[in-house]
């Protein structure tokens, strides 16, 4: 197991470097550069101003020099400096990472928990009313665009009913501390986490249901039934456990999105996370920051892939891990 993990980590570093180089070229292939964007925003500029900015950003260097400077600094675990925001990239990212992790992890737990539960319940009631309703709701959430759901949720729960705050991470200027602050953040978290979780909840529900129905037809389940086990025990111990493998695969995918997957939700709910940071960096051509976010999210994806593979083995010990 240890050898497996260390081998995978080594591979991950190589992949990470390849991703960094690839991203570097992709970003520089986009039209416009940060100097042009900043000059544009200033409403007025002259050649000296543009030259000044380009020198400050290192954009006057040939591309291969810029690439070398960047990759070598990443290897030293230095993600560079964001000239636009005038802060080190690492600091910008670590400032925003907690907000995104809280949001995405909550969405992850909500969707996985409720999704598997709903799917299991629906499969147990196959063909009955409950099954139909769960399948229908899952289909709707699966098919509806996230931002629309988000706006509707704000209109209903925030504007109409006034139950929950419609945007932000916490109440600005309220000065809460300790438990009250946590509670305040929790209230702000509910709407974005629910909306972000709905899509994957629907996917998990549909997948769990289908997978459980399939496993339920297998011989060992028939044997269990013949032994006279109670249906609840059969569903839990025999069917669900075996049906979970595809769900774990998918959960690994969703976990990989923990960092970068919430751009839309973070925008609609003004959630100060990494997704928005990435989007802003993209539209402002803030190269160092954008590459930094990419590196961090790629590292997360690789990490979660590794965790998923380890989890496979825990869920089903028959699966062998090898590097």
């Amino acid at each position, binding site marked *: 197991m240890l050898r497996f993990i260390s081998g995978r980590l080594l591979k991950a570093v190589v992949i990470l470097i390849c991703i960094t180089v690839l991203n570097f070229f992709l970003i520089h292939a*986009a*039209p*416009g*550069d940060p100097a*042009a*964007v*900043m*000059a*544009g*925003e*200033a*409403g*007025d*500029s*002259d*050649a*000296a*101003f*543009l030259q000044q900015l380009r020198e*400050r950003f290192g954009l006057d260097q040939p591309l291969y020099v810029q690439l070398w400077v960047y990759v070598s600094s990443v290897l030293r675990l230095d993600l560079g400096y964001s*000239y*636009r*925001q*005038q*802060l080190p990239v690492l600091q*910008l990212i670590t*400032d*925003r990472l907690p*907000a995104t992790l809280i949001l995405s992890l909550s969405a992850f737990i909500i969707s996985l928990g409720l999704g598997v539960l709903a799917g299991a319940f629906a499969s147990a009631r196959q063909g009955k009313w409950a099954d139909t309703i769960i399948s229908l709701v899952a289909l709707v959430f699966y098919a509806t665009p996230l931002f629309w759901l988000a*706006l509707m949720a*704000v*209109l209903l729960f*925030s*504007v109409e009913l*006034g139950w929950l*705050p*419609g*945007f*932000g*991470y916490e109440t*600005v*200027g309220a000065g809460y501390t300790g438990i009250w602050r946590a509670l305040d953040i929790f209230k702000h978290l509910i709407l974005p986490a629910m909306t972000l979780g709905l899509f994957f909840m629907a996917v998990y529900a549909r997948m769990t249901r289908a997978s459980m129905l399939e496993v339920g037809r297998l011989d060992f389940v028939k044997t269990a039934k013949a032994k006279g086990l109670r249906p609840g025990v059969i569903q839990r111990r025999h069917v669900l456990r075996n049906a979970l493998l595809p769900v774990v695969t998918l959960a690994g995918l969703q976990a990989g999105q923990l960092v970068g997957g919430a751009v839309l939700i*973070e*925008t*609609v*709910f*003004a959630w*100060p*996370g990494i997704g*928005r*940071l990435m989007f*802003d960096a993209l*539209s*402002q*051509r803030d190269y160092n920051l954008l590459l930094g976010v990419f590196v961090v999210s790629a590292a997360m994806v690789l990490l979660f892939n590794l965790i998923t593979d380890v989890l496979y083995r825990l869920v089903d010990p028959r699966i062998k891990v090898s590097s």
Partner: protein
Amino acid sequence: MRRLLSASLALFLTASAAFAQAVPGGKLNLIVQPEPPSIMIGITTNGPALLVGGNIYESLLRYDENLKPEPSLAKSWTISDDGLTYTFTLQDGVKWHDGQPMTSADVLFSVNDFLVKMQPRHRNLMTHVESVTAPDDKTVVFKLKEPFEAFIRGLSFYTMPIVPKHIYEGTDYATNPANEKPIGTGPFKFAEWKKGSYIHLVKNPDYYIKGKPYLDELYYQVIPDAASRSVAFENGNVDVLPGGSVENFDIPRLKDLPNTCTTEKGWEYFAPLSWLWLNNRKPPMDNVKFRQAIMYALDRDFARDVLWNGYGKVATGPMSSKLPFYKNVEPTYAHDPAKAKALLKEIGYDGKPLKLLPLPYGETWQRWAEAVKQNLGDVGIPVEIESTDVAGWNQRTANWDYDIAFTYLYQNGDPAIGVDRNYKTSQIAKGNPFNNVEGYSNPELDKLFDQAAVAYPAAKRQELYDQAQKTLQQDVPVAWLLELGFPTIYNCKVQDIVTTASGLPESMRDAWIKK
């Protein structure tokens, strides 16, 4: 006489409103959109940065809605009869936010050193200045090379924010840590910036005007989605939506909410004017009759009434009507598709399609591009819309890679500062997304503008600018659209929210909340 009487009555009323009833205390939530890269406005000069930074940094003067100079850091000033020497006397008791006194040495450092290196607008203004000196701690003297009457309107926080010498001298200005925690002389002090969430300013208790500012705290909230910003105002989480914070189609709905006030004031200094850049280098845009045909084809009243909800004004020519020296001169171009068609027929236009670049600033601009496409299509000019993001738009216009492109530019208080830059031959520079991007070159007009800039006194300038406006309106180097109106939407409990020609960035000094 009656006019004078009512004017002084009005003055008395506003004065009494400001001094007799203003109550101290309270906090205000505003929107800043998009989140600025920095609020050190000596370096970063975009709109959002100014909105916040204008409360922290001040300049020598501010301007009323008619662009008449008013005291700010300078309490008084004199201009010599030959128009060459400007002498400013600074306010007493002005302190930087770290407690150091502000003196003429700071002004000298800012205008001679810091801003010349960091700020293109200031750099342009200083080309007219021979020297700046300080005979004593409280006096600053600008000596001009030639009379430049516009100079007195170029001294706002927007062009010439005074920055602290003791913080910046001898450092790398661009990376000085004080850029993150700005230190100015303004009515509000920087408290905290939670990136992605809000910028928090607090009252400066040592402000040199006793009793001001009235408000204790300002929160500038960052809400990236336009629909969410409307909701935030609707919910009462935000008290003030600065102009341009919400999509235009949301304005009528928000305006009808109880306790909601709007004003179009506070944009007189910037006086944003929108137009279509017509790439004068390329046929058929190199033909003046083709350009005139475009002017006749555009239904600008429709754009104002439908796309901009009636805000703004149809532009008559290169100058906004809010600007000094503006005059309504002929020819102006009313919507007349028949005339446009006749002109196109006259020049034998072959129906070659044109590429149109909309501005990537939200829904209204997208819709406007579609309306223009339809207007031009109606007279037989086929148009393809090519959308880009902001970075791509800057690159394409800067490299002249377009046929027609939307834009709007600030007029900056005087035609010699904010208008002639778009039409003079000397301003053509590849790689720059501003000024003479259309590639128009007319030596006669260059001469007119050059003379008008330095003519003295103002009456002489008026004649020359009348002539320049006439010439440009005949030549149509760009197709003028609207003097844009960006209404500020706010909760009616907030008083004196706009008190200068630059609006919100400066007015928080005077704003207060009715209990």
